[in-house]
């Protein structure tokens, strides 16, 4: 095993092109667990901690550019939290302060777990993912980026460099169900927004299907929306909860989310 620590994005992309099997590591909250428990032995690790271009966030003409290294702690802080309130709420549900200080949006996208806490609020906000390689830069809608459980559309030579979001300004919230009051993987989760301007209801569920799923409806279909959310999901029975419960919980969360965003 080798560790590469590039000092610039250009160097990182070059290394990734030269050694496509290198596994990117940011906060380590997923990759290190795999290493510690002998579940993965990659040929190389690509440590992105020293790549300044991936850090922080910026705003250009209203478009937010969230660096792949943006941590949950940073996403919880104003003024970003005012722009993306559901993402801030979701970040607060992630693990512990220790995890939020290290875990990154890029990592959450890279892992592409159906339980990824940042994914539903980003999906509700119609975020795009910026993917870079020595060949160039492309952007993909988040829905198109997430292709399966723990699978994404990243090419072998690409790195996730940013998340791009045009904040909707819509009322929004995020909720996560777990059997303990802190430090849980979502049994299921839901981000909800009510976009009065575009007359749209939007909801994205986590841990209730192979990928984080988006459900939309016209604003006047509020009454039937919770049921639609529950029906759109395709949850399974697993060690964390039953499919039946997850579907039920999504309905409850959708009702509550709409209530929060409509009052």
């Amino acid at each position, binding site marked *: 095993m080798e560790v590469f620590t590039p000092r610039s994005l250009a160097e990182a992309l070059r290394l990734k092109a030269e050694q496509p099997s290198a596994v990117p590591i940011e906060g380590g909250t997923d990759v290190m*667990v795999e290493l510690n428990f002998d579940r993965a032995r990659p040929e190389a690790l690509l440590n992105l*901690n020293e790549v300044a271009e991936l850090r922080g966030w910026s705003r250009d003409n209203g478009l937010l550019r969230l660096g792949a290294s943006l941590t949950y702690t940073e996403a919880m802080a104003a003024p970003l939290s005012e722009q993306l309130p559901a993402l801030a709420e979701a970040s607060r549900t992630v693990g*512990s302060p*220790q995890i939020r200080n*290290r875990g990154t949006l890029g990592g959450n996208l890279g892992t592409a777990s159906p339980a990824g806490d940042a994914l539903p609020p980003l999906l509700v906000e119609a975020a795009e993912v910026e993917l870079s390689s020595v060949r160039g830069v492309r952007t993909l809608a988040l829905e198109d980026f997430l292709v399966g459980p723990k699978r994404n559309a990243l090419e072998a030579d690409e790195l996730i460099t940013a998340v791009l979001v045009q904040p909707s300004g819509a009322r929004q919230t995020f909720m996560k169900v777990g059997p303990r009051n802190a430090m849980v993987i979502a049994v299921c989760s839901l981000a909800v927004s009510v976009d009065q301007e575009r007359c749209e209801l939007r909801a994205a569920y986590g841990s209730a299907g192979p990928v984080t799923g988006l459900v939309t409806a016209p604003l006047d279909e509020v009454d039937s929306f919770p049921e639609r959310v529950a029906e759109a999901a395709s949850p399974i029975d697993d060690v964390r909860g039953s499919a039946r419960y997850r579907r039920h919980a999504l309905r409850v969360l959708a009702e509550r989310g709409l209530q929060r965003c409509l009052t």
Partner: protein
Amino acid sequence: MKIELSVNGERKEADVWPGESLLFTLREKLGLPGSKNACEQGECGSCSVLLDEKLVCSCLVLTAQAQGHEIVTVEGIAEDDRLHRVQEAFVQTGAVQCGFCTPGLIVATVDLLAHRPEPSDDEIREALSGNLCRCTGYQKIFDAVRLAARA
């Protein structure tokens, strides 16, 4: 691979397996076993250290990622031979039983009080929710944090 680290203000060198966690390196290569290995997946906080003044689980930091950064472990909390007020408070209030979670809680509490000198009870609970304790039921740990905040 050879790594150079700055731990508790001292420069240290270690020869590490590339996949090694900072926790393992601290404990087994640098003679600093104060940070504890209880879960190795960021669920218990027993390995908490400060990395560039940020509270992190050292089990989730690849040792190579720590190169060039400042690490403070529980061994670096006391000032000279005097206990830090957080350590003193844990001793006074009976917040220590088996003590395996204690180093992580000391570091987490030092970090909390650095950011919130007078935390509310809710803030204490939320800030320490990533540090599992199996012995105390947390009551005396909360007492310790409140005592340290007043000190």
